[in-house]
């Protein structure tokens, strides 16, 4: 079940239910293709999250099934992945949604005066 670019652009947040690991992988791939080890390193640096290799491959398979990433030709034994156009659109929608929630949370904290 791949996600079309139109679906993502239409504002449906398809990343809402895929889990944190998948979102972090997409964010990591946003600046260019990476293979598994590079993804783990980058995500640790980016978000201070240590992805287990089992979690990584599960998330990569899920994102690929959704058509949000695609594998590139293998380099030696490593398979780099890159984000697809629907993947980029889905990530934008998800980040926009997170920003709205974040802004609302901050506003409520101010109003609550806690």
């Amino acid at each position: 079940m791949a996600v079309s670019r139109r679906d993502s652009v239409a504002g449906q947040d398809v990343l809402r239910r895929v889990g944190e690991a998948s979102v972090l992988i997409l964010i990591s791939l946003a600046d260019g293709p990476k293979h598994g080890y590079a993804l783990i390193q980058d995500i640790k640096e980016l978000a201070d999250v240590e992805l287990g290799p089992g979690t990584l491959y599960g998330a990569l398979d899920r994102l690929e099934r959704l058509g949000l990433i695609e594998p590139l030709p293998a380099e030696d034994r490593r398979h780099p992945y890159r984000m697809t156009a629907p993947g980029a659109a889905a990530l934008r929608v998800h980040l926009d949604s997170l920003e709205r929630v974040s802004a609302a949370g901050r506003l409520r904290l101010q109003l609550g005066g806690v």
Partner: protein
Amino acid sequence: MAGPQSTRLVKTALRCYPARWRRRHGDEATELAALLIRDGIPAASIAMSYLAGATREWLTPRLGQRRSLSAVACALLVSACSVWLLASTVPARAASTSQPPSTSQPHCRPARPAPVPDVASAPPNEQLIIREAWHDRPC
């Protein structure tokens, strides 16, 4: 953990994945594990992550494919392996766990069985009470 032992542990975990997955990711996953071990991540932790991934992989139905009984059995086997692996890697922690001295009674202390009345003729609720009477306190 020594190198060959770590490699064997990870390879054992990777064997729990379906063949289709191993054909696609097996070599890369082995290399990735070696790199992570080199970075100081414990092999047991990597193996556990792969075992959890293998369980998910067996339990996630593919497109147009129903989850078969053998898949569920494999997933259960993988889960059992995970528990065994966890138990074998943390025996010292488990052994050193000590209870603080307590004056209170243990939660489930067997007591002398009370004389059992005619259970067959008792209504259902009474049967339940009779079973609980074997302990000092209900569990």
